[in-house]
């Protein structure tokens, strides 16, 4: 269990990236959802020992991640949001090197593990190629391979699917899902589907604050029967709806605008009910939070 308490971080420029975030993260996949700039990466970097929080603590069991960085790093598998590689090394070389760094000192064992990971991540056939020639997806899979090295107890993957094509993304999510159940895996993303497909639990943060925490199913259940849709023809029509209801999202479907609204009761007037999904949870929470933030305190 990873316990995060009251974490805050303000950057030297005055940007408050985290404002007293507290979270309980059980083993298994945990999704961290939020728009760009919400503070996800900051939180991840703090957990990955790359940043010092201003206040608060993060503990994995008894281990204080902030105070005891050396210990933390030994348990950690980290895939940053953006990373490069040494362009002239091959995947196998770099992975082997990282395995040494992660303390796998038995050469035979190391070889086995590295080769296993290369196969798992489907990089086996290109293992001897220079990393400089890898495509985005391959590089991303290499990233996950290195994050999985040496059985980490805490795996942090920051926006891993950004920029992947659907097939790549699929393969990538499959891989993530194969990670053992007793490991804490934190997956940050701004893609709702990632969380829906993978995570048993999730949290949403925006503007450095925690909006919601729980199982995706629960959150969806809470909205059951409260999401309504309507296809609108004109902007005027849309504006009219906006005045009387809280719009969750507007989608283009076949060139027409479909408006989804949240309403406890039937809005009538051409709306019909629909199943709530995680995206609705996401958008609704975001817009409520923004509305709250816009109000003068």
């Amino acid at each position, binding site marked *: 269990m990873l316990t995060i308490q009251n974490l805050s971080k303000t950057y030297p420029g005055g940007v408050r990236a985290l404002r007293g975030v507290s979270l309980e993260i059980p083993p298994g996949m945990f999704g961290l959802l939020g728009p760009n700039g919400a503070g996800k990466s900051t939180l991840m*970097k703090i957990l990955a020992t790359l940043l010092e929080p201003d206040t608060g603590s993060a503990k994995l069991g008894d281990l204080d991640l902030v105070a005891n960085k050396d210990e933390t790093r030994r348990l950690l598998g980290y895939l940053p949001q953006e990373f490069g590689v*040494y362009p002239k090394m091959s995947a196998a070389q770099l992975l082997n090197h990282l395995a040494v760094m992660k*303390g796998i000192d038995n050469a035979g064992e190391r070889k086995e593990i590295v080769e296993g990971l290369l196969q798992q991540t*489907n990089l086996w056939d290109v293992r001897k190629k220079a990393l400089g020639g890898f495509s985005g997806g391959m590089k991303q899979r290499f990233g996950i391979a290195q994050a999985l090295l040496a059985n980490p107890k805490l795996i942090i993957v920051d926006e891993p699917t950004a920029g992947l094509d659907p097939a790549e993304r699929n393969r990538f999510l499959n891989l993530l899902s194969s990670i053992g159940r007793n490991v804490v895996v934190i997956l940050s993303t701004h893609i709702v589907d990632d969380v829906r497909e993978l995570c048993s639990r999730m949290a949403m943060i925006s503007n450095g604050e925690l909006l919601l925490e729980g199982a995706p199913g629960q959150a969806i259940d809470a909205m059951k029967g409260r999401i309504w849709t309507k296809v609108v023809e004109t902007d005027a029509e849309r504006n009219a709806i906006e005045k009387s209801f809280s719009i969750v999202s507007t989608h283009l479907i076949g060139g027409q605008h479909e408006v989804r609204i949240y309403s406890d009761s039937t809005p009538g007037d051409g709306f019909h009910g629909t199943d709530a999904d995680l995206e609705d949870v996401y958008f609704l929470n975001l817009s409520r939070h923004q509305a709250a933030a816009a109000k003068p305190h």
Partner: protein
Amino acid sequence: MFWHFFMFELRLRMRSISTYVFFLIPFTMMFFAVSVEDFGPIPPGKILVNGPFALFQCYLDLTAFGAILIAAIFGPAILRDFHQDTYQLLFTKPISKFAYLGGRWAGSFVTAVFVFSGLVFGGIVGTFMPWADRSRLAPVHLLWSLQPFLSVTVIQIFFLGALFFCVAALTRRLVVVYLQGVALFAVYLILLAVVVATNRLDRFWPSIFDPLGIVLRDNITRYWTVAEKNTQLVGWHGLFLYNRLTWIAVGVIALVLTCVLFPMSAEVLGARGSSRRALAARKIDEAEKASRPRFAPGARQVERSFSGWSLIEQIASMTKMRFFNITREVVFWAICLCMIALVMVNGRFAGDANGATVWPVTYLTLSVVSGSSGLFLFIIAALYAGELIWRERDVRFEQIHDSLPLRDWSDWLSKFFALSAVEVVLVSIVAVCGVASQAFNGYFRFELTQYAKELYLVYLPQLIMVVFLALFVHTLVSNKFVGHAIIIGFFILIPVLYRYGVENRLVLYGEITPYTYSDMNGYGHFVKALFWISSYWLFVGAFLSVLAIVLARRGADLSWGNRMRLARPRFAQLIPAALLFLAAAGTCGAWFYHNTHVVNVFRTAKETRHRQAEYEKLYKKYERAPRPKVTAVDVSVDIYPERRSFEGSGYFTLVNKSGTPIEEVYITDGQESVDGIRFDRLAQITMRDSKHFYTTYKLAQPLAPGETMRMDFRVSKEQRGFKDGNERPELAYNGTFFDRDYFPFVGYNTNLELDNPARRREEGLGPLEELAPRGDPYYSNVNLFSPDADWISFHALVSTSADQVAIAPGYLKREWTEGGRHHFEYDMGDTKIANFYSFLSARYAVKRDRWKNVKLEIYYHPGHEFNLDKMMEASKNGLDYYEKNFSPFQFDQFRVLEFPRYRGFAQSFPNTVPYSESIGFIERMKKPDDIDLLYFVTAHELAHQWWGHQLIGSQTQGSNMMSESLAEYSALKIMEHRYGQEMLRKDLRYELDRYLRGRGGEVRHEPPLVLVQREPYVWYSKGSLVMFALADYIGEDKVNEALRNFLMKNRYASGPYPDTRGFVAALREVTPPEYQHAITDMFESIVLFDNRAVSASYVETPDHKYKVTLAVKGQKRQADGSGNESPMAIDDYIDIGVFSGPSKDHMKPLYLQKHHITQEDTTLEEIVDEKPTYAGIDPYFKLIDRNPEDNVIEVEKKK
């Protein structure tokens, strides 16, 4: 459109801070060059540091080294669009190629001109600094700044900029631009090395094709006198014009090529850059798609460890990775290849030291290969320190890297190890290059242990110190380029600090004490100092690295606040290491300090000069005070080579020859070696100034005129511990050589006076006193070489360690071993000698021979047998010639003794010639027409036994030429008889070069030969030239007759001593009237010719002979001491020659006659039997000609 791009480029540059940083570089360099003594290339003397020549030279040098700035300005102008991928936006718009390229180029050009205008502004601002030496500054003269700026710097910017721009535009890769820069520079250095090493005096073509102008400058201004250097600009004519036009043309061609070949389309440009990458990616993709998906094996337990062996393995893995990061770079190998090329080329010339060829012995080869690799190894250390420190951040791997379970110090250590390993590999490459170049040179005595010692124990630690520093700086500084600038600045600062009197090497990072390897003495007494100072700096470096580890970047927050926060726990952890290194550095430093500052007195160069100046100020008043003269020296000297010490005692017999009673005796103890003095009568020390090595003794009973007195003394020099440089070269474990300087000197010693005018000004002294004029009543009676004696008798007991031989002048009377020491007794008997004696001791091998009744001996270092026979031959030929032509040899023996190369001369003591190991013992004549310097030097020193040990002049103007010029003439004569005219002419051509260059560097004023004072270029080079010219006019026998007459008349004269008035009279006596004025010109004035062949053609006559028509110009000028010239009417007999032969170096005379030339332009016709190829005036440069290259031209067939 053009205007738009131009202004865009210019605005961009003018907003960029780098432009102003670049500006500051030439500005600062020039500022210091003008305002600070010794910073610039102009040696202290009379040349104005802001005069036209000085500015020309500074601009040229700084622009040459500023080529890197030019690359940095022009390269990015075009690469920027490709790095930022803006080219796609740009080239899809309708813009013309000319506007785009031209605008970018012109903008860069203006920027570069602005940057280099720092030269002009720096120089001008420097002029007004209060600390600048006023006497070497002229008022600001804009033309002197602007003309060279335009003709050197701006043109350089133009064509180098065009070249760099061209390469950048056509390859669009920054790496290639840098590589090109490095490669050009290396090629230039290589060609320069070749040009310098071949040592040809005719450098016409190298001058024309010299892009940076170093050879060009030398060729144009080498013979400029001080007056010319202070008034004359390098004008747009001749060589300079051709060179500039050549390179402007190169620049234009580069620009045209750029414009023609640059593909102005986003498609082509994009495709080329990314096609390779895309192709590679596609291949990988395909390979991957073909593979089957695999399923994850269950997670398994793994053994993990982070200490002990695993830790070592981790560091090793990291080191290996970083090592390959460096060595897989193309740039790295390009730098290496350049280094290897330069090392090999320079290694090829390792034996071409100072114009003569010597065997490329290991110490010479080592100094050449390590010297030429130094810059590269330094660049690699500094450059890759930056790359390593920033590596993860540059490739954006830092987040993964920094969250690895690594200790803070193991990451840093791996960087240090990797870079050190790279340096070790490179140093090994240098070693291989050294051995290879020795082999290529046909020298197979590889001293591998010496290679190992020099390269791995002395050289490598210095590189490691640079590695430490560079890693430290790059860790601290948050910008790579600022880091590089700091490191470069640091290494520029060190010599500046040193010049400013910070000579304590404990405070100059990475500086080690200077040392010299000698075949005789090995690393000898330098070992201890080297060990301690190297250890000291390595520990300081290690301490710096602890600080660097503490402050190393880790994580995402690089603010200083956060770094300090991270530093605290790290520092706590590393305190033991920090303390250990600090303590070790402290111990080594303290021991070094103790030895260099406590056990030995430490004096900066300035302090030493100050003492000399004070000595002069305080005691010059005693210069002419009556002093007793030494008539006999009897000493006993015990040399302890293993301690680098000696002790001696003995006595001088002093006689009052002055005519007045002497009450006070003054003793100068210049080497601080005199322990005690006792007279044979009561004497009281009335003044002892040990700071200025001067003591006054008042005799209880004055020494009456003609009376004799005995003065006993004890002397010793004990070399304790070690020094920080300035080790006495006289004392060595093997190869001790010291002379009478270590014995008391009676009276004030003018030799201790400072002679450099700038240094004298610094000390508030007036100009150095000129030597007394000839006939000066006081100095006519003073011996030129030893004012405290006339002629002496000499007896010495010398002892040394059992395995060494000790030598002093005199005949060996006795040799015995007693108490484990080797004793010798030397006695000069009745033969009087000059008061000039030496003591040597070493483990010698001896070669013996005999000439008539004279014993010939060479004491040499075993292994240096190369030239012993030739040395013997030179001695015999010399004895033959000098006895036959001058006078009998006064001794029964002649000995040559080798001494370590800490000093590089040979010196003639009575029947004893110490001869440095560096100048002859290892000579090698590669080609039969190489000048045989060994033969010449041996003959020269032998000739001093006549000119210097039989004939000594008075201490007045001109007397030096009677020893040096005559020894030079004598030696050249026997060389001519041994090797023929060819070699002699070649040698004289170099003498002419040395003379003309010498007068260009004169710091006081140039005297005519017979008034020479302290000007070696006059007494050696001009002396040889005019003595030979005279012999050519009146005949060798006539000159020798005059010399013999003069010598016999003045042999052993002891007051009044002869001077050059008598010498000139002796010459005039044997010279026919038509050449009398030549004596005036050559000996008594400074006269220069500028003879030139204007045109030459031939027609074949009906009887198959060739009629040559030759037009020549003869000009003659008289110069004053500063080099101001005034025309003189020509009225001289000058050689006119017509030659056959393939080149100017191999000409066979068909006609060679002296013609009486009386007007500037003369046209002559001669008939010769063979087809002529060359003709000219004074073809063998017998006269002093400022432009000897144009004396001979090709003969053309007349149409």
